[in-house]
């Protein structure tokens, strides 16, 4: 008998059926990979399982008994833990408090007071199981994304979950953190816990899952043991046709004209003596582990963070006082890794988001009125150029868009300025296969138009598939450089991991300070 069986699950929103009878089953100690494009019904299915949404039809059996969760708490009590893509952790509370937020151990068992000693002991046990070495009293706010993910898993373990659902767990993790997560998943599997793993990173799915189920348009279109589901098969099932390639053909080659020249940029404790040159028509990748200083370098280059020595020049002109404004004026654009926090105004319309960085260009000379018709036309044009898909390409709110379309909005915002230098920090994070391909194509168009792109990514395949050159950062320094012909994932990884890091973890610093 399977541990968990879902039969014919149905769900409609506003009279439109989005889930047309999804069925699958899961055994103890197995990992089920669930793949599909955005909108294929993965999240809806899992939200039903996790008690977030009620189902309209079908049945769920857990250990043979009917299972009908009325809310997240109910599902959890039944043994199904759901680890959302956006973690449900409270940064102002400590790790242990987050673990037990709905079920604190109490003094004397029933008194309304928290038994701190017991909580700490249990937290230590749980943290040990997920390899976190911070004291349980550490505030979650000072943990890295990967560590927070592990705290969520510990939370699931604390209630003896029988099934753990992971929704895109690796989007904000570095390779190393992801490896650590996979190790933990392996360990859980051996303990007999069943897991459902949702991800767009198909290589990961192949690597860790026992079985794979593919969803498309709210229905199961295929599935089977992982061994029988090579990546190409998954993709063709997901998109409903065969994809010839994951990356578009590059249509240009780099020129010799430098557009961005960075010389000796240093910031104590962050980056050291960074030299790099980006040419027109070039995609320059930056590889490295998380914490290697890639995003920090990007922020420094765009004037968001200060630096102590060195110069940044665009088109041969040194930027005097780098700030986002001056950098933009020199022709730079920056797509941040934190799309929701820094990239978009989630409650504003697409138009407002796209226009935000270019308001000055559409302002009348004296009174600074916005030339709304011209702006509207341009925004529409750019929207088409990035193939933005939305119910209302002008007035839809950013938060109503899928991740891929949100990212296109951010790109469109910068495209409107016609920049010469693009700094893209994890541009395809959390985006489905189809949208990724479109973003790659946009990048190609950009460089073909004479711009230079500096691209940071944690997905090695992506860098190797798209870049002309890859720099490897390690420890705040540029460790190695490879040209297209010399790409080799082993060598890149070796460069990225060379020299054991001796730097203090951010958590440790915060502790010393507090």
């Amino acid at each position: 008998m399977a541990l968990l069986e879902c039969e014919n699950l149905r769900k409609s929103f506003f009279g439109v059926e989005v889930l047309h009878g999804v069925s699958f089953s899961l055994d103890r100690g197995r990992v089920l990979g669930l793949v599909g494009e955005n909108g294929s019904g993965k999240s809806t299915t899992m939200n039903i399982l996790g008690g977030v949404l009620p189902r309209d039809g079908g049945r769920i059996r857990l250990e043979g008994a009917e299972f009908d969760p009325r809310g997240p708490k109910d599902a959890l009590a039944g043994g199904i833990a759901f680890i959302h893509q956006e973690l449900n952790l409270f940064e102002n509370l400590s790790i242990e408090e987050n673990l037990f937020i709905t079920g604190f151990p109490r003094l004397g068992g029933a008194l309304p007071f928290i038994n701190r000693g017991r909580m700490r002991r249990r937290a230590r046990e749980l943290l040990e199981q997920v390899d976190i070495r911070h004291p349980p009293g550490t505030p979650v706010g000072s943990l890295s994304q990967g560590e927070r993910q592990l705290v969520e898993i510990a939370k699931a373990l604390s209630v003896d979950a029988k099934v753990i659902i992971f929704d895109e767990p690796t989007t904000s993790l570095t390779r190393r953190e992801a490896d650590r997560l996979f190790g933990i998943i392996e360990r859980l599997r051996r303990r007999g816990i069943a897991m459902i793993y949702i991800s767009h990173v198909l290589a990961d799915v192949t690597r860790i899952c026992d079985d794979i189920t593919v969803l498309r348009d709210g229905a199961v279109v295929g599935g089977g043991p992982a061994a029988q589901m090579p990546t190409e098969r998954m993709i063709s099932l997901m998109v409903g046709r065969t994809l010839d390639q994951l990356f578009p053909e590059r249509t240009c080659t780099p020129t010799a004209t430098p557009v961005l020249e960075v010389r000796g940029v240093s910031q104590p404790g962050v980056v050291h003596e960074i030299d790099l040159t980006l040419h027109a028509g070039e995609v320059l990748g930056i590889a490295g582990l998380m914490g290697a200083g890639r995003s920090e370098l990007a922020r420094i280059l765009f004037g968001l963070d200060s630096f102590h020595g060195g110069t940044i020049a665009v088109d041969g002109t040194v930027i005097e006082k780098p700030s986002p404004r001056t950098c933009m004026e020199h022709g730079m654009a920056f797509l941040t890794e934190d799309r929701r926090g820094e990239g978009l105004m989630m409650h504003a319309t697409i138009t407002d988001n796209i226009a935000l960085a270019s308001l000055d260009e559409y302002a009348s000379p004296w009174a600074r009125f916005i030339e709304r018709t011209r702006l509207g036309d341009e925004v529409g044009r750019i929207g088409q150029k990035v193939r933005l898909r939305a119910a209302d390409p002008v007035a839809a709110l950013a938060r109503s868009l899928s991740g891929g379309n949100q990212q296109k909005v951010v790109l469109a915002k910068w495209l409107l300025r016609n920049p010469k230098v693009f700094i893209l920090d994890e541009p395809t994070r959390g985006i489905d296969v189809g949208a990724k391909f479109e973003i790659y194509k946009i990048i190609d168009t950009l460089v073909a138009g004479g711009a230079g792109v500096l691209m940071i990514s944690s997905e090695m395949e992506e860098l190797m598939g798209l870049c002309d050159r890859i720099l490897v950062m390690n420890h705040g320094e540029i460790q190695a450089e490879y040209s297209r012909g010399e790409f080799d994932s082993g060598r890149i990884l070796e460069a990225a991991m060379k020299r054991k890091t001796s730097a203090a973890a951010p958590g440790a610093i915060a502790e010393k300070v507090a």
Partner: protein
Amino acid sequence: MTATSLETEARSSGMRRFVRRVLFSEYLVLWLSVLYFLAVLPFVPQMASVEVLRNILSDMLPLLVVAIGQTFVLIVAGIDLSVTSIIAMASVVGASVMTGDGGYLAGSPLAVPAAMLAMVTVGLAIGAFNGFCITRLGMPPFIVTLTTMMFFSGAAIWFTTFHTTTSSIANLPHGFVVLGQGNIGGVPNSLWVVLAVGILAHIVLARTVLGRRLYACGQNRRAAAVSGVPVRKVIAAAFLISGACAAVASILYTGRLQTGTPILGQTILLDIIGAVVIGGTSLFGGKGKVVWTVFGVLFLVLIDTSLKMLGLSLFSVFAIKGAVILLAAVIDAVRTRFAARI
């Protein structure tokens, strides 16, 4: 389903469409005002007289100017509690410049313009100080403006003692008083001023670069910074505008009372913020319009006027005012929930 039920269904859906249109229109507060007006009319028929309507309009004007300033600050997710103290401080400073009883420029033809300039300067200066502390020193707006409110409320009273032995500064020049009472083309001067401020504010918010940036700062400050918005300058601008608007309100208040008084406006803080928020502007930033504020102010002034006309005892005045505000807010909340469902 039977034929009759279909029919009722159809009729009720027509009804529903209408209700929906009214509920979701951004003019809801205006409709509520009209509804309230009609509701109190049987009790105070004089409400419909030209004189009362004119009073309502003129009572709205100064409140509206401060409220417009406050709208800017709320849009950038700030709050400005210091506006009442700006009104008081500007009032006594302006009066001290132009009063016939030993004013700095008593009798000079420049007295009136200089005094008005001084008043606006007071507003701008306090607004600039607020803006500086919030953007450069990274202090929370609530507490910064709370302390400036305390400080300048006290300072206004103290300042008055240097200029008069009574509790207020009177004997303002004729020119200033006439300015408040006069009219151009049959429209009172104060209305011209408020119209100008209102239209300007509306244009700034809806049409200019600054307006877009104000909304952006309120929506997502970090995203705005990354997109090259000079966040600090924009937020400081909002506080400057709020200070200047409060000073203009002070000119209007001082003009209608013909007196510079240090307790001017001390009790209207919650009215100001309440009017803006009832209009629909969010306390959490990124959302707000000048017309909404106009409706919010209209709604509050309408309630106030009706209560004044009724001549009720203090407790019923308080209770009714509270109940009506609550009712308006409940209707607003219910409609947003309907909107979320449809």
